[in-house]
């Protein structure tokens, strides 16, 4: 299994490169992952998306798709792509310490 050093210690990753254990996640690891993904600073809007993703995952066991994010996170599609360039659902899930969304939409 691959690992990544976050907060000074090695953390296990899944096959997609997302955190393997959700318990390894905290706001500091989120900031570190975001920096590695090319997002130097997490704004309130980033956090709104991240927290929305985590709450959906908590309830449903899967990360929400881009349509769900657009409809329910309070952040529209255009802004989502600006906040998380090159794949908002995929990137936000990674930063939120969740597996890659399974849905196609």
């Amino acid at each position, binding site marked *: 299994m691959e690992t990544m050093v976050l907060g000074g210690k090695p953390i296990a990753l899944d096959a997609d490169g997302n955190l393997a254990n959700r318990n390894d996640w905290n706001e500091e690891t989120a900031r570190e992952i975001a920096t590695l993904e090319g997002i130097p600073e997490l704004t309130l809007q980033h956090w709104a998306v991240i927290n929305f993703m985590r709450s959906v995952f908590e309830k449903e066991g899967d990360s929400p*798709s*881009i*349509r*769900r994010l*657009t409809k329910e996170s309070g952040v*529209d*599609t*255009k802004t989502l*792509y600006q906040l998380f*360039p*090159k*794949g*908002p*659902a*995929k990137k936000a899930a990674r930063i939120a310490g969740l597996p890659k969304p399974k*849905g*196609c*939409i």
Partner: protein
Amino acid sequence: MTDKPSPIERVSIIVSHGSLEGVYPGLIMANGARMEGIEASLFFTFFGLDAIIKKRMNNLKVATVGNPAMHMPTVFGAIPGMSAFATSMMKKEMEKIDIPPVDEFITMIHDAGTEIYACKATVDMFHLTMNDFCPEVDGVISVGQFYEKAAGAQIIFT
């Protein structure tokens, strides 16, 4: 030792059919490309244009005649209301898995940064104007311009 194939960076997707099942695969692939960080453009041609014509885009129907995958005899498929019934069933199932109606999907795909074009030959043939199209359409282009814009992209014909 083999090199790992390089990832797809751009796709140009052509939508040439106007049935519900003819339009959605192209939209899903365009949206899916953007979700993976792949650049995408959509080119609508022939009956595929129905997907971007304001008055028609939300009234696309499933083909129940001449569609062997419906698994019903052609005469049943031809019964009035059969196509509407199959369409409404399919739309319900799509909503369950978060596939939006065509107009909302086109907006989402365009907001995601996908360029959307209509085919000039078809537009001329059907005597259409930009006013017939939804506002997300970026322009009416010829096949030559399509190929120019598709430079370096994988072309997907649906």
